[in-house]
Every structure is written in structure tokens, then in C-alpha cells.
């Protein structure tokens, strides 16, 4: 109903292929970014920024990573946590070996390491398909978490056997380490996530995105059209792992502040996967929605139930949120396999044809 598209005609392909062809969408996204960059940091409490926004954004990025692999290319992966870990540990090693290079550079470049690892574990994807591949990725998960635990070199032989985040500043402001304020870290995270989301949207809308989806929808046809399956799949693994890697690095350096191997256990993989499923396979927007829902559910559940008059202790709340998430996953798979993102699509379509039903 708010979509008044009359008079929005395209005279060039560039305009027609723009990220947001509809004016109203452009306005909408502008407002969201504006809010994210000004309103939230201005009004948001430290708790809100630190405990909600930062992790939400980081998980959203990881979800994008997994979505590229599973949603766009149709390769089911249970190894997300592992790849995130690679990013984190790589970042730690690089940062300690070359302390003079700025930490944020390492946060981003550590993605390349996990990309490389991703390619290695992606190699089987040529021969094996579907669940077999899922199991293969599980292998990477277990192997990697083993490495994190068993190779003290990764943590510079810390007795704690955990990553200890060094103090670093950006423009004289602490961005990592204990002194870094939530606001500083929030801006860094937000900037990185926005930038990488933009890049991802460029990828998936272009030739490469089409190759990925082609492989997903009908690999035989894709192959007979000259699309090299292995390269395409490996590229998906690389990009996906890159995103997960960066997310992992940020998780440790800009959120936890220090982390043990458990942070990148298989449960992490499952959490991300459920974000992608609920958010919507093959949708960047969905990655954000899913992350928001899954991550915030445990936070929101107690107050919600509280408002219903039943007060419960944290443990119970956690169990409940597990059940709810599980139920939600099943629910979405039944009513709308494409998740929240599709629900939004449908709503939007309704608004566009309003008041017509179709």
C-alpha cells in the first residue's frame, strides 16, 4: 500500500538491475542504516550494544556465510563453527606474530586462512553429494575443534589454553581488549558487517551468484552449460568460509574478548544452521532475520513468560528456548520452507498490489 510505483520507469539496464530498484525500498534501507549508525549508538545502552547488537550482527555475518554455501549453492554444511574458529585462531596468531600490523586488518584477512581451509574440506564436494557431504563437513568440524584443543601453538601455549585478545586502538580509540567500549566495538562490527553484506549482495546478484544457484537447482544442466561444478562449489566453500572466518575473528576480538575452543564447537554450527533455516535459505535478509530470532529468543523468552505471570529460572528458560527454536524450525519448514525472508517477500508483494489480493 505504501509502494506507489507509478512513474518509476527504467530507461537503462543499470537502473533496472539496481540493488533496490524500487524507490520506497531505497528509502527504507537508508532509514535502517541511518538508525543503525546514529540512533542505536546514541540511545542504546552499553548492555544493549554489547549483549545484543554486537553478537547479533556477528552471527548474522556468519549466517550469511553459511547461507552462501547452503542456501545459494545447496551444499549442506555442519562445519560452520569450525571455520569460524579457524578465523579466530588465525587472527590471533597473525596478530601476535605481526603485532605492528593493525588488528582490524588481521580480523579481515584471517578470513583468507579459513577460506583456504574451507577449500580443502570442500574438495570432497565434487565426488559426494547431499548428506554424504554434510557428514564430510561434520568431519571438518570435529577435526578443527580437535586442533583448537590439542595444538597449544594456536594459543601461544597459554596456560588458560584460550585466546587472550590484545589491546589495540583505532584512531586512538580502544577497539579490542578490556578497555574497548561497546560503542567503539559496535561501530567497527557494524561497519564490517554492512560492507561485507553489500559485497555479498553484489556477488549473489551477478554471474557467480547465478552459477551457484544453477548448481543448486540442477547441477546436470549447469554442467552441460559449461559451468565447472568443482570450481563453482569450491568458490562457494571459499567465500562461505571467508565470511564465517571473519565472523569468528570478530566474535573473539570484538565480542567475547577471550575464547576457548568450545566457542567453536559443533553446537555453534547447529546454531548458525538453524538461523539460516528459520531466516530463509538463499536470502541475505533472511540471514539477519534468522540471527535476530535465534539469538534473541533466549533473551526475550524469560521477560515474555514473566509478562504472562510465570517466572522461571535461567536454566528452564534456556531449555524452553531450545524447544521453541526446534518447534519453529519444524513450523517454518512446514508452512514456509523459505523462512522469514519469504514471509517478508510475501508481505511486500501484498503491499505492492494493495488493495488487490494478487
Amino acid at each position, binding site marked *: *500500500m505504501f*509502494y*506507489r*510505483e*507509478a*512513474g*518509476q*520507469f*527504467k*530507461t*537503462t*539496464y543499470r*537502473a*533496472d538491475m539496481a540493488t533496490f530498484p524500487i524507490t520506497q525500498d531505497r528509502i527504507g534501507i537508508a532509514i535502517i542504516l541511518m538508525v543503525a549508525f546514529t540512533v542505536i549508538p546514541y540511545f542504546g545502552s552499553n548492555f544493549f550494544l554489547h549483549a545484543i547488537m554486537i553478537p547479533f550482527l556477528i552471527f548474522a555475518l556468519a549466517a550469511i556465510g553459511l547461507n552462501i554455501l547452503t542456501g545459494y549453492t545447496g551444499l549442506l554444511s555442519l562445519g560452520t563453527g569450525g571455520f569460524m574458529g579457524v578465523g579466530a585462531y588465525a587472527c590471533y596468531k597473525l596478530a601476535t606474530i605481526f603485532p605492528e600490523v593493525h588488528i582490524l586488518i588481521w580480523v579481515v584477512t584471517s578470513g583468507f586462512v579459513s577460506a583456504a581451509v574451507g577449500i580443502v574440506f570442500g574438495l570432497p564436494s565434487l565426488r559426494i553429494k547431499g548428506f554424504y557431504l554434510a557428514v564430510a563437513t561434520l568431519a571438518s568440524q570435529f577435526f578443527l575443534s580437535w586442533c583448537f584443543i590439542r595444538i597449544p601453538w594456536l594459543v601461544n601455549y597459554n596456560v588458560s589454553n584460550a585466546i587472550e585478545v590484545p589491546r589495540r586502538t583505532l584512531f586512538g580509540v580502544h577497539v579490542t581488549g578490556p578497555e574497548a567500549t561497546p560503542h567503539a566495538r559496535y561501530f567497527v562490527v557494524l561497519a564490517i558487517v554492512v560492507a561485507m553484506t553489500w559485497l555479498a549482495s553484489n556477488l549473489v546478484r551477478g554471474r557467480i551468484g547465478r552459477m551457484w544457484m544453477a548448481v543448486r537447482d540442477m547441477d546436470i544442466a549447469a554442467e552441460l552449460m559449461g559451468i565447472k561444478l568443482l570450481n563453482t562449489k569450491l568458490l562457494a566453500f571459499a567465500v562461505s568460509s571467508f565470511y564465517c572466518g571473519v565472523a569468528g575473528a570478530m566474535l573473539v576480538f570484538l565480542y567475547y574478548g577471550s575464547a576457548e575452543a568450545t566457542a567453536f564447537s559443533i553446537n555453534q554450527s547447529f546454531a548458525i544452521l538453524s538461523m539460516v533455516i528459520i531466516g530463509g535459505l538463499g536470502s541475505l535478509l533472511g540471514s539477519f532475520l534468522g540471527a535476530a530470532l535465534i539469538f534473541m529468543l533466549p533473551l526475550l523468552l524469560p521477560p515474555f513468560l514473566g509478562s504472562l505471570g510465570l517466572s522461571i529460572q535461567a536454566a528452564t528458560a534456556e531449555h524452553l528456548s531450545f524447544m521453541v527454536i526446534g518447534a519453529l524450525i519444524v513450523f517454518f519448514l512446514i508452512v514456509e520452507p523459505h523462512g522469514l525472508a519469504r514471509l517478508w517477500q510475501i508481505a511486500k508483494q501484498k503491499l505492492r*498490489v*494493495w*488493495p*488487490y*489480493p*494478487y
Partner: protein
Amino acid sequence: MAQNAIDKSVDTFPKFLLVNARVRGDRPAIREKDLGIWQTWAWAQVKEEVKALALGLKELGIERGDKVAIVGSNKPRLYWAMCATQSIGGIPVPVYQDAVADEMAFVLAHAGAKIAIVENQEQVDKVLSISDRLPSISHVIYDEPRGLRDYDHTRLKWMNEVQEIGRKAFASKYSGDAWEKMIAEGKGSDIAVILYTSGTTGNPKGVMLTYDSVVVSSQNANAFDNLTEKEEVIAYLPMAWVGDHIFSYAQSYVAGYTVNCPESPETIIEDRREIGTSYAFAPPRVYENLLTLTMVRMEDAGRVKRAMFNYFLKHARKWGEKILNKESVPVGARLKYWLGEILVYGPMKNRYGFTNVRVAYTAGEAIGPEIFRYYRSLGVNLKQLYGQTEAAVYITAQPDGEIYADTVGKPSPDVEIKIEPNGEVLFRSPGVFAGYYKDPEKTAETKTPDGWVKSGDAGFFDPKTGHLKIIDRAKDVGKLNDGTLFAPKYIENKLKFYPNIKEAVALGDKRDYVTVMLNIDLVSVGSWAERNNVIYGSYQELAAHPRVYQMLSEHVDEVNKSLSEEGPMAGAQIKRFLILHKELDADDGELTRTQKVRRGFITERYGPLATGLYEGAKEVGITTELTFEDGRKGNISARVKIEDMKPHAPAAPMGKAA
């Protein structure tokens, strides 16, 4: 408007093209939705294209006064062809692209066209199929090369080649402004275009219009609604129809506004929405269809949404027009209307692509008051006008703020009108036509020596508003045997205001009572059938369905009711009706190319039904021949039921025509 301060030296469209190319060279002149986007040409570009084409035509032997036929749907290059022809003194003759071969043969032969510029393979085939009857045709030029590769190209040319020829010629034998000189030779008194009107009877007549008449009425029209170069119009009506010629060509060249050609007939509604036209012109049928579509769609909407929709429509019906006419309206109503604007009116206008419309016209036929009010209540400034090819359209139009559903407005600028005793409307204006091509006596019949033109329509000036009201074709206004005045069109329109009724043919002249043959509207009745799970396989089946009959008889009854309240008309209530077993179709000659019913033709074609209607038969069998799109012929036969109606008591005493 300033730049259009009437400059008498600019009196032909090629001259206007030069002006536009100079004054607003980089403003969009014309767009076409092609290959997925709106390909746009600025005036300066158009000038170059037209120039190349013009010189090309000249090379192919077009001299001053030669006729060039133009056949096809609205495409930029066909509009250019029109201007190109005019620029070298030729006379364009647009032809209805859906004309069957015979019709086309007549027009091309009668006009003696030297070159036919056509859209695509389909038209090429048509022209070639009748080429033996067209000795005068030297070349056929086509716009869309697809499928024509293997044709014999001795007399066939692709428009690009022609333009190439033109460019070469310019490079070789013409000096810099040779073309501009040719244009300068054109005079306002020259014939600008010959438009063949598909007369309701007999062969089409070629209406010759001079530049002066077309230019003047265009200028007046632009001034009347103060149109500027900023307007966006969408060109989708037949190029051979005077309406399109004036709106999409003449007025555009004069005002310098942008014309948009749709991607394909199926996508017009979407295309109109994308463009968001600011100046719209359409026969009532278009508005009807849009409304029908809306109602059908809303039937499927959720209950709440439908309730909201109806609620606000009701409010709009109450206040919308007043607000549009800037009358004083209570604040409460205004607020509610504003809310409605957000929830319903705005979105609806957006759906129709009327969001930016400043002025929208309906013409060609009477429009249903309900439909008319609907659009106005949404805030669309829809107006009526009364025009004819012979007048270069404008005879009367409704000025802003003086809008009435049942009038056609006041005389347009420079137009004089008088009403004959028999009710026929005569007009005189600078816009009137020069005469019918090669048909002096017909010309004499319609045009008096002192320049008055017989419109052939019966009407009168409404004393209350001072607006003209048209009842019907003068010759169609007949009498029942008891002398009651019988205006068939009037009755038919009342019927056609019901979305379920697509066409109606009223009989009664020199008969004892009035009867009608109906066509149901497949869209709305079809969806009604779905909702009431009435199963049907074909139009014929649906039309014959008892429940459909029942539904329509209710409509007819309501019409009788309203007639009974209209004094003179009360005697002309409908006694019997039937639903035709096939849709009336232009290809069968039952409708004119502008989709008007040919009453006479139909009554004889369906003779058995007509007699049945008056001999009290309950059911009549009939077999009819029909023509398919591809020109093949076939037969369909059916038994058609006839329904009796009981008339309402007249509210006023029977009015006998004097």
C-alpha cells in the same frame, strides 16, 4: 506554455519537430518499452531519425502529395514515418492494423498509396496478399525484420535500409539544410493526413485534415488543459484513429511532451503504471475494463480488506468529487478522505497508473455515470469530451470544475454549435476537415457551403448547465409504432453500465415494443460463475445458462425501472431480451474498428432472432458464420432462449414524440 505562444509561422508538424529539436532538443520526445527497458529518444535524435527516413522515402520516389500508408501498432518509428512523410510533402494514411485484408485493400487502393510502411511480418504478409489489387504500391517498408529474412526484397525494404539510403543521399546529393528547406515548403493549408473513418455503414470514408485544422485544435486543446512539455502520455489506441493522431502525435509535437509506446498489448496496464501518465485519453471501454478488473479482483480479497475498500469507496462517492471540484467540505470528511487516500484511493490510482494524472479524458461514446463518478471520486480528474474525426476531435469538452456525468461539456475554443430542429448537432470551427477524399458528394452531404458540419448526432443543450448532451445518432433516433421516441444507444448504454453486460443491441424502430440482444462480459460473468460454481465450457454455454439469464433479467428490469422514470423514455421499456450465443466481433463486421455496434448489420445477420423476439417465440435456433483471427471461417449454431419482461408503470405520463 510560454514557448507555445502561438507562432503562426510554425504551421506544420515537421516545422514543430524542428522547433522542438531546437528548443528542447534533449528532452524525451518518445519512448518505447523494448528489450525490457524504456528506450528513449530525445527530440534532437527524433529529428535525425525522421530526417534520414524522409530522405530515404524521397529516394524511393515519394513526391509532394503522394500518399504513404502506415500500418501497425503504436511504435516510435511509425510515428516518425508519419512526420517523415509530411516533411517531404507526402500525406500519411494510417490504417487500422487489425483490419482484415479486404478492408485494408479498399483503403490502400482508395487512397492510392505509393508506399506502405508496416510494422512486421504479419502486416507485410497482409499487404503482399492483396498486392495484386494495389497497382499504386511501389514499395513495402517494414520496421520489425523478424521472419522476413527469406522474403523477396525487390519491393520490400527494412526501415533501417531506407534510413541508410536517406543518409547516403544526404551525404551525396543534398546540401546542409536541404531537408529543412523541403519542410519550409509545407503550408498550413496543405493536407496533413487522411484518416479513414470506419463508418457505421458502407465503406470507410477518407477524412482529409489540413495542417491548419489539426494544429489549431491541438493548440487549443493544449491551452484548454494547459499542457506542457512535461506531460507523459501512453500511446496504445489505433494510430488510424483521430484520437490517437491528435493526442499521441499532433498535441505532442505542438506542446513537446513525451509519448510512450507500450511493450505489448498484454502489458499496457503495467506499462501505464510504470510511466505514470499525466495526461490520459481513452474510450469508456478502457475505464470500464479497469473498473471491472478491480471489482473482480476485490471479490477475491479477504473480507476485512473488501469491507475497508467498500467503506472508503462509499465515503469517496459522497465527498470525493466535491473535494476534487474544490467545493467546501467538512474537516471530518476531509480527514477521512485523506485516510482513504492512503489506504485505498492512492493505491488504486497507483494500480491504474493514474497517480500523476492531471487530466484524463473519455470520449468516443457515452460513459456510465457510475464508472465516471468512480474515477472522479478517487481524485482522478476524468472529463468528457465530444469530438469527431471531421472536427479534428474537439467539438465540446468539460472545463475543470464543471463536470457532469451525463453531459459532454461546452463548445471547445473557436467552435460554434447549433442544433437542428430534428435534434441533430451542427458545428463549425477552424478544425473542421477539408473534405472526404475522392468523395465530393458525401462531403457536400455533411459539410454545408458556409462551413457547418453535420455531426450526425442528436443532442441538446442542457439549460441548467449549458452543456451539450448527446442522446444518440440522429438517424438512429427512431419511433415505436405507437410513436414513442426510441433512442437505442441511450437504452444500450444504460444496459452496458452493468459490468456483466458487454454489448447490447436495442431494436424497436417501427416496431410495437423494444427488445434487446445482449452480450455478457466473459471476465465478470466468468468470475461470477466461478464463485457460484457454475460450470461452463465456452462463452456459448455460459451465455445460455439459466442463472445467467436470471441475473441479466434483473439488470434489464432495473433499466426498465429507470426508463419508466424518464417521461419520454417510459414507453420505450424493454419487453423482451435474449443473450447472443457468440460475442460480437469486429472481424465479423458486427462492431466497428472502434468497437461500436453496427445495429443494422446485426439485425439482418441475426434475422431469425429478431423475428423471434417479435413473434413471441420462447426459443430460436440459429446458425452463424464467424471469422477466426487467422481469417479462417467457421460456423456455430445454437438455440437461443428469449426472456419476457414486465414493464414498470411510468412515473410520468407517456410522452409521445411530436
